[in-house]
């Protein structure tokens, strides 16, 4: 039964698993899930572009993954089948071969498509809050935390002093032949 199940699609297998009709070993289920996860990026659009070396292929790959498809809201150039994404991939390939630097290619795209195309927004007046807002909040949180701990610490140490004082008084009242265990410290 297990052998037969292995030949159907992984999704069907999972369905079987949860309908409790087929027993699947946990390890094979894990294998299937892992392979499904790995299959994700391979689905993205593939163009057969030639590169003279691995470095430029790498650069192309980073750029098409980092730039956003202008026609889609949530897809990068690498993952889109839209005509404009194909055109821009072709353009990036051309620019990489022409020896343009990554920064220049980003600038080329920015000149034409603006902020929209950058998944990593530029640091400017309009994006300051986006870039540094979280850092600001962290700073506020640390400040509040430090202040809180500090003020609590002071209050507690004051209370301890009072406590110590009464104990000291108590100890002084006791006979010197019977030291309290806390005094050993």
């Amino acid at each position, binding site marked *: 039964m297990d052998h037969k199940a292995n030949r159907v699609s992984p999704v069907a297998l999972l369905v079987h698993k949860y309908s409790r009709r087929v027993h699947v070993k946990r390890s094979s289920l894990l294998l299937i899930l892992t392979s499904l996860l790995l299959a994700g990026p391979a689905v993205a659009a593939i163009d057969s572009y030639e590169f003279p070396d691995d470095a430029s292929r790498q650069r192309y790959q980073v750029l098409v993954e980092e730039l956003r498809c202008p026609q889609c809201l949530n897809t990068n150039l690498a993952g889109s089948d839209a005509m*404009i994404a194909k055109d821009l991939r072709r*353009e990036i390939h051309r620019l990489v071969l022409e020896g343009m630097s990554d920064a220049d290619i980003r600038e080329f795209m920015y000149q*034409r498509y*603006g902020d929209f195309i950058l998944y990593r927004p530029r640091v400017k007046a309009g994006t300051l809050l*986006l870039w540094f*807002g979280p850092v600001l909040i962290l700073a*506020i949180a640390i400040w*509040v935390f430090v202040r809180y701990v500090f003020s609590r610490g002071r209050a507690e140490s004051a209370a301890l002093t009072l406590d110590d004082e009464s104990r000291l008084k108590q100890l002084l009242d006791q006979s010197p032949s019977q030291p309290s265990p806390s005094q050993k410290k």
Partner: protein
Amino acid sequence: MSKAALFIPLAAFILLAFVLGAGFFLEDPHRLPSVLVGKPLPQFKLADVKDLERWVTSEDLLGEVTLLNVWATWCPSCVAEHQQLLKIAREGTVRLVGVNYNDDVAKAQQWLLKLGDPYWVTLADTQGKLGIDLGVYGAPETFLMDASGVIHFRHVGAVTDEIWQNTLRPMVLEFKQNGSQGE
């Protein structure tokens, strides 16, 4: 320090989340504002769709207020828009230049023969290169440029009678006025 102060970071976080989150609702997230507005027409040299032997350059378009219309035969809304463009051409207020974007030239020629040709000239942008330089990401798109070649307005989607009457036509008249004053 009071315990209420402990909520300051949380309050700051919620505030930031709201301010940044509001950005998603203030405007259409699909809207892609043209970077080209206020800039000159990009340089190009492309063949004339009706006469592939003839080259047209960006300089050839200067000297007159122009509506640059990006279209393609594969674009469904371009069919509807074409009637409106023919109407605008008949009115004669503004010169129309077509950019046949990412298209088959033979099909484009057929289209112009069958549906009529509102354009002064149609550029064969078969590779979509001028499209990229214009920041075009689909068809139809329409750009309004003044006589000196500076682009002033970009409209994404089909030009309707309403857009022509209320937006484009007043701008065309304004630029024509400014141009004749300058001379």
